[in-house]
């Protein structure tokens, strides 16, 4: 197992700006000179007011947003990989095997039953359908999604139910790097507990987690460190230790 002192992810001088061609080419600078490192088994929580660029950072790490400047690197045993200049098709494999993402909202695929939405990341890796189904059902059960909903498409589910489908889908494939964008936002206390457990389990198996949590209680229970983002510069500071926890750096 890679030691905790060696980061799995490192971000240096990250810069992100949007150019809005519809607004006479106005440039919207949302992040500048952001640095962070993240080790296996560690959970780093991004903090700061909304609109500060927390989700933007996750989306850059997931390849959904382009990187304007700076570097994003993953450190593997046999060398590092720079994410900023990868050809598009490289992300197919990267997302399947390395970088998982639990978004704030479930992008509903019409007509696909909830259990199959959850199975999909495993099926993409070629896992046998029956195995994938068992694992998906186990997760949905843990997240207290009523069994009668498993075979229904999540389009008509409540926000909380959709979120749980989304969480199951994000955690099922046990990616080494997990990006969590407010996974507990619309959950009740009992299900928040389950998500906290899932995060602890992921850390225990060595996954590196980078998350956004507005719920302070959850944040304090899962975060090893906090990374506060500040206006216009993203996080100028390297992570400060989170309250009541020893920072690992």
């Amino acid at each position, binding site marked *: 197992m890679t030691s905790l002192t060696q980061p799995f992810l490192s971000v240096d001088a990250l810069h992100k700006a949007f150019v809005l*061609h519809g607004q006479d080419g106005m440039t919207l600078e949302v992040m500048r000179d952001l640095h962070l490192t993240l080790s296996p088994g560690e959970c780093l929580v991004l903090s700061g007011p909304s609109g500060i660029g927390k989700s933007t950072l996750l989306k850059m790490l997931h390849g959904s947003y382009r990187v304007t400047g700076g570097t994003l690197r993953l450190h593997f045993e046999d060398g590092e990989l720079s994410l900023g200049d990868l050809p598009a098709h490289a992300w197919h494999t990267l997302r399947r095997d390395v970088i998982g993402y639990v978004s704030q909202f479930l992008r509903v695929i019409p007509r696909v039953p909830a259990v199959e939405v959850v199975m999909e990341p495993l099926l993409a890796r070629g896992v046998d359908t029956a195995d994938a189904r068992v694992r998906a059902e186990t997760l949905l059960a843990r997240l207290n999604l009523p069994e009668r909903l498993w075979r229904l498409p999540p389009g008509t589910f409540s926000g909380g139910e959709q979120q749980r489908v989304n969480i199951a889908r994000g955690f099922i494939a046990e990616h080494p790097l997990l990006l969590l964008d407010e996974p507990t936002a619309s959950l009740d206390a009992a299900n928040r507990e389950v998500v906290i457990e899932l995060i602890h389990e992921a850390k225990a198996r060595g996954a590196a987690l980078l998350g956004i949590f507005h719920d302070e209680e959850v944040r304090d229970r899962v975060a090893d460190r906090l990374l506060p983002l500040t206006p216009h510069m993203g996080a100028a500071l390297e992570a400060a230790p989170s309250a009541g926890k020893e920072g690992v750096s």
Partner: protein
Amino acid sequence: MKRPDLNRATLLEARGVSRLYGPGKGCESIDVRLHRGEVLGIVGESGSGKSTLLRLLSGMERPDAGQVIYRPAVAQGRDTVGREGELDLYAIGEARRRALLRMEWGLVHQNPRDGLRLGVSAGANIGERLMALGERHYSQIRAVGQDWMSRVELDSRRIDDAPQTFSGGMQQRLQIARTLVTRPNLVFMDEPTGGLDVSVQARLLDMLRTLVRELGLSVILVTHDLAVARLLSHRLMVMRRGQVVEAGLTDQILDDPQHAYTQLLVSSVLTP
């Protein structure tokens, strides 16, 4: 953890293909690369040149300039010349090109009536490619036909019914079954959900997603519908006036478009 192998073999490559019917009409000097197991969406408004590009890539229309290179997994036949089993689509003979289209590739037309034989039953439609490949066992052909009807969610008891008795959505599913029955290496789809009702579209899209994954299909998909592109494609190419204005990962193109035209296109979509 070891560095994952991010390379994927290229299945189809176009180098500088052009076909112009007039200034800005058609497509001009376009490079395309499709990797194995990938769904590449080509989006753009009508007249952007996306359908012309599809015709050039699929062997239906010879480009004025440029090459289309197909790299089959296994080198096959005497026409497979050149490096690493490359097949230059417009340098090989017409016989080989047609055989390729018939045996190894598939084409799903927007209008199912263009892709189906309306005079013969659903089963005969699905079985045709099998018979063209030399399958000569009636019961087996029929069994495969029934299996495929269920796969595309058609009632397999209707295997002897004529396609005219099917609805538009059913005809489209029949066309897809007919095309995929031989498990082609490469499938071209031209607005596959184009003429269908919204409710029927959703069902078809879901079915296509499943088939793409289960069969490991490589697909080039032409659509003007960004929602369809998002659901089905891994990568997107945005075309305008015969040129590619932007290309990249699907969610990158749709969530963080760089080019002015792409931004306009994405922001013009109505999201309910």
